[in-house]
């Protein structure tokens, strides 16, 4: 390309002498300019992630040299599955200033986390890609593939998908004999998880009937404690591993009526880091759940 541009310069200077050659060279330059993406096998080199779920996908799929920074959440003991992979990578608090510092050629974020930062970065002309919310395990597969495409690691992504599929099939086979159980989720602020969510799909894969979905709840909705108790589930999944100071929200899961119910029921406590994000770690969560049937 450089050579040809040089040639154009020469031609312009010599002026018109040979018209066809000039036209050819111009055409060739333009062609080259527009087709760079076709030729470039270049992966993004300075990727910044500004949220927990994209942190984990990045650490999982991208080459280490590609990563410029991940968010502080990547080191959160409760939330992050990939703490060990972070190493000495620089951390960010998903603020615009910090991210610009890295001059990223790609910023990855979840559709719902730090959306204001993502919007601002886009306005400043940065390439921002947002992963959609996964509502099923199939969504995770397409999400992994898409992320592989963005970061130029398609093959790696494909192999992760294949491995997940194999593991899930194995789990399903291993626990096919156990009876189905009913389950209900109760989390801070009294929220439960209904149909059309990743968690619901995970329950189904693990051989459970999610009573919130049976009641007609879709997505994440608050449920009255009375309604939960009256639903009479075999298993309760409660978020109690929040090692944070008091709040009214966590008082919901500490209600004495719930303690009494747990005495007479089974209690499922799947670590948050295994189920909070879309990724291959959810097979471990499903295995945990299926084991308890």
């Amino acid at each position, binding site marked *: 390309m450089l050579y040809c541009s040089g040639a154009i310069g020469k031609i312009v200077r010599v002026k018109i002498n040979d018209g066809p050659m000039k036209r050819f060279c111009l055409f060739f330059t333009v062609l080259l300019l527009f087709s760079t993406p076709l030729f470039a096998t270049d992966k993004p080199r300075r990727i910044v992630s500004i949220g927990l779920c994209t942190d984990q996908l990045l650490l999982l799929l991208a080459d280490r040299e590609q990563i410029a920074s991940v968010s502080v959440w990547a080191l959160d003991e409760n939330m992050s599955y990939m703490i060990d992979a972070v190493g000495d990578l620089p951390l960010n608090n998903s603020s615009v200033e910090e991210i610009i510092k890295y001059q990223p050629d790609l910023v990855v974020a979840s559709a719902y986390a730090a959306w204001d930062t993502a919007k601002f970065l886009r306005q400043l002309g940065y390439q921002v890609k947002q992963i959609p919310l996964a509502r099923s395990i199939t969504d995770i597969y397409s999400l992994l593939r898409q992320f592989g495409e963005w970061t130029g690691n398609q093959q790696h992504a494909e192999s992760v998908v294949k491995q997940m599929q194999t593991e899930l099939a194995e789990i399903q086979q291993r626990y096919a004999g156990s009876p189905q159980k009913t389950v209900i989720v109760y989390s801070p602020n009294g929220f439960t998880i209904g149909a059309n969510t990743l968690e619901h799909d995970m329950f189904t894969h693990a051989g459970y009937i999610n009573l919130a979905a049976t009641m007609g709840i879709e997505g994440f909705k608050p449920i009255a404690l009375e309604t939960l*108790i009256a639903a009479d589930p075999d298993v309760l999944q409660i978020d109690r591993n929040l090692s944070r100071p008091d709040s009214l*929200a966590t008082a919901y899961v500490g209600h004495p*009526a719930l303690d009494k119910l747990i005495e007479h029921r089974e209690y499922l406590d799947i670590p948050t880091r295994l189920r909070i994000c879309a990724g291959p770690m959810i097979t471990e969560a499903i295995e945990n759940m299926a084991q308890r049937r």
Partner: protein
Amino acid sequence: MSIRALEPRVLYAILLPILLLVFLLALNVGPVEIDLGKSMRDWFNELTTIESLILFDIRLPRSLLAMFIGATLGLAGAALQGLLRNPLAEPGIIGVSNGAALGAVIVFYYGMAGFAWFLLPLGGLIGALIAVSIILLLVGQSRSIVTLILAGIAINSVGGALIALALNFAQSPYAMQEIVFWLLGSVANRSVNELFIALPFMLVGWGMILYCGRFLNALTLGEETAKSMGFDVSRLRLVLVLGVTASVGAAVSVAGNIGFVGLVVPHLMRPFVAYEPRRLLLASAVTGAILLLVADIAVQLLSSNGEIKLGVITSLVGAPFFLFLILKSRNVLQ
């Protein structure tokens, strides 16, 4: 319009059955239909069933809490109106409730509540005490309504801002959303834990306020007259203030700032007790309990998930009444 005062016997023969009725109604209201008879039987047979759990671990503590907090607010309103000899005095309006909420927020969100059960209501008490002291300093001997309201606005604003600040710096990721609870109040999802935490402080506070009944009667004639009648004014005033702050502090520390109950109830009851401050105390307590139970039933009927806060209902009723009182006392203001 004139309402005839009622004999205490007649008054309570009307109020107490209403209270009982409203309380039973509150036990009956909830997102799930349950057979109260079966709940009772299961409970007596010491069976943990769905029915007994819902009645005894969810609805009973909530309704008792609403009842006791309503009584506290009615009583505190009557006491403050008598003490400050001002018809607009009320824990919410003069900033005592926000002060209590601030104290409770600091104890609750900064991990101190876990050390001992009494620290949370104590935090509420200290916050309320600071607010009421500032009010007494600002208002002093003045009986001006304007001074009291302006001082109340100032203390309320500072209290609200400090609550927001404290929640902002709190570790819990939920803290900021919970400002609504502290500013508007709720008894949704409250359990026996909160009931037992708040009750001792409320009972002691009630005792102290009721003890000052005769003093409040004498105070209507002015402090000098009360003194000449043999009342130890400064000691009794302290008892009254401590009684109000203990009970309001405890109530707010488990249910947030529920506004206007303390304002509306004493005005509602005054004609029935022949405008006698001492008799107004108990009547306001019972009526406050009824009113808050009704408000909580309304909350549950309007939204099964308790998303409407109790203070929304009481303010919707109370704020227009507040306006009405201001308009009525316009002559005094000018």
